[in-house]
């Protein structure tokens, strides 16, 4: 019995990383894809209302950010994340979640150093390094003009 158990454990260890990877990728694919389809629907709706494409995309981001934060507050986004993995991290709703989740979690430390500071624990580096990259892009663009 003990022997069988050990054998089984070995078998599981051998086979599960790959099956997990495939399953995780599949889940990331359809959930992430679905969020983008919802985004496309919102964008198309505002295009049909006569919005300019840039405005339609900006409104889409804002609405998705709102939904992401609402679902974070309701405790639903974490549940989605357990299945979706990167499918819930990579879309803009994942960025929204990365701001809202620590803001909520550290609420007990107050609104200045809890909510106000901790909301940037992940968004901070995102903003820092994307700003840096945009400045580098800008310097090259300016020099190449």
């Amino acid at each position, binding site marked *: 019995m003990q022997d069988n158990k050990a054998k089984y454990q070995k078998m599981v260890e051998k086979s599960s990383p790959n099956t*997990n*990877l495939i399953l*995780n*990728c599949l889940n*990331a*694919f359809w*959930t*992430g*894809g*679905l969020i*983008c*389809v919802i*985004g*496309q*629907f919102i*964008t198309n709706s505002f295009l049909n209302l006569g919005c300019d494409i840039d405005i339609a995309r900006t409104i*889409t*981001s*804002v609405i*998705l*950010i*709102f939904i992401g*934060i*609402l679902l*974070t*507050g*309701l*405790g639903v986004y974490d549940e989605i994340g357990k299945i979706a*993995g*990167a499918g819930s*991290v*990579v*879309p*803009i709703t*994942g*960025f*929204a979640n*990365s*701001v*809202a989740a620590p*803001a*909520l979690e550290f*609420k007990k430390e107050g*609104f200045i150093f809890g*909510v106000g500071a901790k*909301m940037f624990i*992940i968004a901070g*580096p*995102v903003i820092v390094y*994307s*700003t840096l*990259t*945009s*400045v*580098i*892009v*800008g*310097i090259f*663009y*300016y020099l190449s003009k």
Partner: protein
Amino acid sequence: MDYLNAFWVGGLICVIGQILIDKTKITPARILVLFVVIGCILGGFDIYDKIIDYAGAGASVPLPGFGNLLANGVKEEIDAEGAIGILTGGLKAASAGITAAVIFSLLGALAFNPKEK
């Protein structure tokens, strides 16, 4: 057709993130930083706009789309205002997303309490 392209391209970008999380030691938080920076670089080379032309929200909704927004913003501001655009363009383009995330998160922290674990 635009829904199909949004679905598979958006899904594929998420799969790349999933493989990085599962196969390397890159945490989800670092994926956020990495993808936005990559989007900004691809935007700098005018590559990401072509993906958005094909995939629509499938490319604009994932985080590289946010980075691309900064790259485009910088270029537009340099065209309009000159060198000062290097400093103003990026965050100006990102302002709607950042402001929305900050304000909605503040309201969320007021309205909700963290789940007991």
